[in-house]
């Protein structure tokens, strides 16, 4: 890709977030899409490319009443939307379409019009993992952390601090699900879910959606919104199950995706003003900070505990409160992208003053996949 060849011109979440029992899941996609179109002054007939995950792109296109000339149904878990952005840039550069709509909608809490995904995402899982009593994500995604703790010195208090700092960010966001301050003791005394993970180290389960509209940069100036340029992108996959990660203390998919995004963007870590790292569970920002190279091995826990990522810190991270406090419908990546866009537009309720460059890093399918998007508000 060419850095800044394309831009996000429309971005919005669903009208409500949290508990939306009176809206079916596909309508959550549409509600977000209509909000994003209104955001940039387009109509649905202007869209000629669609990408989505969870539902098929054909279901989405038909529901919206459009017949696009480009589709992407990449569905690799919660970071699918980061991959959609990457693929959309390639499609826009190639001229396959002119205006791309990426949507997410998930009735994760209310399960209204919910489309159930297969319980076991792979043959490997069904044959060799499920019989041993792994089930929902808190019993799977958490599996490598004891190894991480023994090998790198990560502590339960470090994990608790991830939740504490993100709650601090969430307190700025009127739309965040949880906004009251918490302490390390609150986290460590919350209900044990899957040792060493307590409830407050695990994400919320909520309803919501979000949508993005992308076009080529030469057209981006014609919109009422401040363009947010896509400066770099990366993606990768490693394994369908945590037990088969090459190294339980580092995600190969994170490393490949992050490196590609930084290389295509032509940036160093010092250039990054704002960071989002998908946090379905408290250990993910730890892995992300280390695997993207912001800190060395074993340094991410202390880095967060010392306040570097909190409001006023040198690397503001997960400024919406993240999946731990803002919202988490199941495939959270879209909400991380939305907060990066708000920060680059200068309109986040927790705005980082003067932020010019944001890195938004996602995980999918429990260390299975990864996608990274570098955004900037400077052409």
């Amino acid at each position: 890709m060419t850095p800044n060849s394309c831009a996000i011109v429309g971005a919005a979440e669903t009208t409500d977030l949290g508990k939306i029992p009176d809206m079916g899941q596909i309508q959550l996609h549409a509600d977000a899409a209509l909000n994003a179109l209104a955001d940039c002054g387009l109509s649905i007939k202007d869209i000629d490319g669609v990408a989505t995950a969870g539902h098929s792109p054909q279901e989405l296109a038909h529901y919206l009443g459009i017949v696009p000339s480009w589709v992407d149904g990449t569905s690799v878990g919660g970071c699918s939307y980061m991959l959609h952005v990457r693929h959309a840039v390639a499609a826009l550069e190639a001229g396959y379409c002119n205006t791309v709509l990426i949507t997410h909608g998930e009735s994760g809490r209310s399960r209204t019009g919910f489309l159930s995904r297969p319980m076991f995402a792979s043959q490997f899982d069904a044959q060799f993992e499920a019989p041993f009593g792994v089930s929902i994500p808190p019993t799977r995604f958490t599996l490598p952390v004891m190894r991480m703790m023994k090998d790198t010195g990560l502590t339960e208090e470090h994990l608790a601090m991830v939740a504490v700092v993100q709650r601090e960010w969430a307190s700025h966001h009127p739309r965040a699900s949880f906004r009251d301050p918490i302490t390390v003791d609150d986290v460590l005394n919350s209900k044990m879910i899957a040792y060493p993970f307590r409830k407050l180290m695990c994400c919320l389960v909520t309803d919501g959606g979000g949508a993005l509209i992308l076009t080529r940069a030469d057209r981006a100036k014609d919109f009422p919104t401040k363009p947010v340029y896509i400066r770099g992108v990366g993606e990768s996959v490693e394994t369908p199950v945590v037990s088969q990660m090459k190294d339980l203390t580092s995600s190969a998919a994170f490393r490949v995706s992050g490196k590609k995004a930084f290389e295509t963007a032509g940036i160093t870590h010092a250039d990054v003003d704002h960071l989002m790292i998908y946090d379905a569970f408290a250990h993910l920002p730890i892995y992300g900070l280390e695997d993207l190279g912001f800190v060395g091995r074993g340094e991410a826990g202390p880095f967060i505990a010392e306040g570097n990522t909190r409001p006023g810190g040198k690397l503001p991270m997960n400024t919406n409160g993240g999946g731990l406090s803002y919202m988490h419908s199941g495939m959270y990546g879209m909400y991380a992208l939305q907060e990066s866009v708000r920060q680059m537009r200068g309109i986040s309720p927790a705005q980082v003053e003067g932020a010019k460059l944001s890195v938004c890093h996602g995980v999918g399918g429990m260390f299975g996949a990864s996608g990274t998007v570098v955004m900037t508000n400077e052409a």
Partner: protein
Amino acid sequence: MTDRVLPTPTPETRHYWEGAKAGELRLQRCDKCSQAYFPPRPFCPECGSRDVSVFKASGKGTLHSYIINELGAPGLKPPFAVAIVQLEEGPRLLSNILECDQTPEALQLDMPLEVVFEKVTDDITLPQFRPAKEA
């Protein structure tokens, strides 16, 4: 009958499940590059060779990582450990830890483990692990 989630063997994995029924932990090794690997497949994931052999593994390993499931799962009462076992031959696999307290105090990382076989139905026996007995 059990509520336990049970595997459905495929042509490529049948030797593994037949082995468990016979009281053997069976892995595969590449005849070309001698890499031992898991899960079962009729080629080497390291070099791509189709020349591979099934062999009986030692059944020795160590506790590489784990969680203690407090939520339960079909056919399993919480709390119970779900562990990643590092096998002596190189591959890793998932297991419960039998004949052991399901507590952080009893479950020490890198403790030696040995395979045992848990018959669940007439068709399915699961390879499981327990703390290694003193030699």
